[in-house]
C-alpha cells in the first residue's frame, strides 16, 4: 500500500458511518437512525397513522352513517353519490370501510401484541431454563396447539357471558385468538432462544457475573427476536381475517358492529356479480396488513447491525 493510499484511508475514517466519534450510541438509537433513512418506514408509518386515525375518529373521514340503509340503492356500483358503491343492505361501503377500521385494527393489534407478549415470555423462559420447566411449558403449549382454531374459539366465545358492549365483544374475540395463538409464538421464541443461548457471548456475560435477567434482556432477547417480529406482523393480518371468519360463523363481532371482516364475509356471496362489495373492504384489510408487515420488516432490519 502506498503512502498516499494510507493517508487517504486515514482521512476517510472520521467521516465513516456518520461520525464514529460522537456520543455513545445504543442499538435502539442506531436502529432509529437507520429507520429514518428508509422510505418504507415512512410509507408504512403514514399508512398506519391513517388507519389509526380512522379507528379513533372515523367521522373525520366521512359524514355518512355506516348503518343507514338505502335499500332502493342496494348493490349499486361506485358512483359520485356513494364512492365505493353500496352493499346488499344499501349501506355505503366507503363509510363502512372507514368505520370498520376500529374493530379490525383493535382485534389485529391487540391479538398480535398479546400473543407476542405471552408466547414470547413463555418461549424465552422455556428456552432459557430448559429441563423440567421447558418440558412442562412445551407440553402445555402443545395442548392448546392441538385444539383447532375455530373449535377452540367457539368454545371460548360461547362460554364467556354474552354482552352488548362493543369493547367487551372485541376483547372476547381477542381473548379467543390469544388463548389459541400463543403456543406457536412460544415455540418460535423457544427455538431461537435455544439457538442463541450456547453462543460464546452469552457464556462471556455469565463469566462476567451477569444475572440471568441481564443475560436474557441484553443478550438473548435482542438476538432471538427477529423471527418473532416477522411472524407477528404476518399474523396480524391472519388475526383480522380470523376475526372475519368468527363473525361469519356468528360468534365474533355481530352486525350492527361494523368491521372489515364482517363486510368481507357478507360480500363473498356476490363475488362474481358485485365484486366491488368484496374489493373495497379487502383492499383496506390488505393495505393495513401490508403496512404492518412493511413496518415489521424495517424494524427487523434496523435491529440487525449487519444489514447496515
Amino acid at each position: 500500500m502506498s503512502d498516499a493510499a494510507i493517508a487517504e484511508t486515514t482521512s476517510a475514517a472520521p467521516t465513516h458511518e456518520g461520525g464514529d466519534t460522537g456520543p455513545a450510541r445504543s442499538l435502539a438509537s442506531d436502529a432509529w437512525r437507520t429507520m429514518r433513512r428508509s422510505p418504507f418506514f415512512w410509507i408504512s408509518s403514514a399508512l398506519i397513522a391513517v388507519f389509526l386515525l380512522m379507528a379513533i375518529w372515523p367521522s373525520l373521514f366521512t359524514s355518512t352513517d355506516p348503518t343507514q340503509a338505502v335499500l332502493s340503492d342496494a348493490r349499486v356500483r361506485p358512483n359520485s353519490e356513494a364512492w365505493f358503491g353500496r352493499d346488499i343492505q344499501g349501506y355505503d361501503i366507503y363509510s363502512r370501510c372507514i368505520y370498520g377500521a376500529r374493530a379490525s385494527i383493535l382485534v389485529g393489534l391487540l391479538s398480535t401484541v398479546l400473543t407476542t407478549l405471552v408466547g414470547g415470555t413463555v418461549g424465552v423462559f422455556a428456552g432459557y431454563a430448559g429441563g423440567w420447566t421447558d418440558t412442562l411449558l412445551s407440553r402445555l403449549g402443545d395442548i392448546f396447539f392441538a385444539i383447532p382454531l375455530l373449535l377452540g374459539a367457539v368454545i371460548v366465545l360461547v362460554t364467556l357471558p354474552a354482552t352488548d358492549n362493543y369493547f367487551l365483544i372485541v376483547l372476547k374475540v381477542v381473548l379467543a385468538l390469544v388463548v389459541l395463538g400463543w403456543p406457536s409464538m412460544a415455540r418460535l421464541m423457544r427455538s431461537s432462544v435455544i439457538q442463541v443461548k450456547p453462543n460464546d457471548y452469552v457464556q462471556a456475560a455469565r463469566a462476567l457475573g451477569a444475572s440471568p435477567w441481564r443475560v436474557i434482556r441484553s443478550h438473548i432477547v435482542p438476538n432471538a427476536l427477529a423471527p418473532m417480529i416477522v411472524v407477528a406482523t404476518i399474523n396480524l393480518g391472519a388475526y383480522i381475517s380470523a376475526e372475519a371468519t368468527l363473525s361469519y360463523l356468528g360468534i365474533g363481532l355481530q352486525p350492527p358492529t361494523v368491521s372489515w371482516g364482517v363486510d368481507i364475509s357478507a360480500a363473498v356471496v356476490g363475488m362474481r356479480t358485485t365484486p366491488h362489495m368484496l374489493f373495497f373492504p379487502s383492499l383496506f384489510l390488505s393495505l393495513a396488513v401490508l403496512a404492518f408487515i412493511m413496518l415489521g420488516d424495517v424494524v427487523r432490519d434496523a435491529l440487525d447491525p449487519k444489514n447496515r
Partner: protein
Amino acid sequence: MPEVVLSAQNLVKHYPIKRGVLRRTVGHVKAVDGVSFDLHKGETLGIVGESGCGKSTLGRLLMRLEEPTAGSVTFEGQDWSGASARDTRRLRRDIQIVFQDPYTSLNPRMTVGDIIGEPFEIHADVVPKGGRRQRVQELLDLVGLNPEHINRYPHQFSGGQRQRIGIARGIALNPKVLICDEPVSALDVSVQAQVVNLMEKLQDELGLAYVFIAHDLSVVRHISDRVGVMYLGRMAELGEEDEVYARPTHPYTQALLSAVPVPDPTLRGKRDQIVLVGDVPSPANPPSGCRFHTRCWKAQDVCSTLEPELEPRADGHGEHLSACHFAEPRLVVETVDVTGIEPDDRFVSTDTDDLVDAGAGLGAEGGGEELDSGQAEDRARPPATEDTPQVSDPTRVVEDTRDNQG
C-alpha cells in the same frame, strides 16, 4: 517462586450419558478426570493436547461456567467451589476468560463500547458511571484498537481485531488470571502472532497470569512459562517450558512434539517421527491403568493395571512431573528458544498497534501478508523472498518446485 493465585485440586468433570425413554444414566463421559496444578502470579501456564482431551472443559471448570463433579478450584487460598453467589460474583472479577471464536464471542447487536463496558455495568462499583466511556476507550487503546471505533459493531472488525475486543473485555475488570481458551486457533497465522504478542505485552503491563489453552505447540511454547500436556482428561506431563519441550519424558508428549513441523528442509526425512497407531479411546470408557497404554510403544503389563501418578521423574537434567512408569527423556526436536532474541529488523515489526488501520483489517500493519510469526522460527534462515523469486538463478527455482511436488 511467586505466590500461587489459582490452584486446581483433583478437578473432575463427568457428563452423564442418558439413554432410553426414562433418560437413565448409562455411563459417564469423563471429560476431565483428576487434574491438579498451581498457577503462579504473573506466569503463563500452557495447556496442550489433542481435540477432545478435556482442555476446554478444564478452562470452563476454572471459570466456574460448569460445576465440577469433584475437586476444587482455589483462588488465592479461597475455595471457589463452595463460594456463595455473592462471593462468586466478586471472584469473577479476578478470573476472566477469552474465548476461541471471535465471531461468536461478541454480541452482534451491541456496539464495541457496550461490549467492553458491560463488565462495568455488572460490577457497578469498579468505575463510576461518568468515567466508563473514558475507561472503555483506554482499554481499546491498550489492546491496539482505535478508541474512536467505540460505536462500531463487531461485524465491522476483522477476526484479529475482534479477538482484541474479547481480550479488552476480559481485562476490563483488572483480573489477576485470564483463562484463554484457544484464543488464536481461529485466526490467521499472521494475526495469531499479533494477538500473542499483545497478550505478552499485557502480561508485562498488568501482571496477569494466563492459563493458555491451545493445540498449537509452537504458540504454546512461545508464550508459556510452564506447560501441561493433557491426554484423555488427565495431565500426562507438567513442567517448565524447556523441560517439557527439550526433555519430554512421557511418550505421549514425545509423540506430540515429533509432529511439530520443523522449518528446516535439510532435516526432511531425517527426523524420527513417532506416528501413533489407532485413535484416541473414548472418554466414556477410558483404558484401565495408564490411559495412553493402548497407543504406547513402551507399554508393558503394568501399564494396563497400575495408573502412573503424576510425580517428579528424572528427565536427564533434573526432574519434572510426568505420569509414565517408564519415563525417560528423549530428544525429539532440536529447537531454539527465541524468547530472548531481538527480532531481526528485516522483518516487519511485532508492534500490535493498528491505529492507522481505518477499515476492517486493511491498513498498513493489520494486513495479511506480513508474516511476523514466521520470524520466530525462521530466524536461522535468510529471509525468504516468497513473492518474487530471484530470477538470477532460474534453474534453482525449477528444482525447488520439482522438489516440492516430489
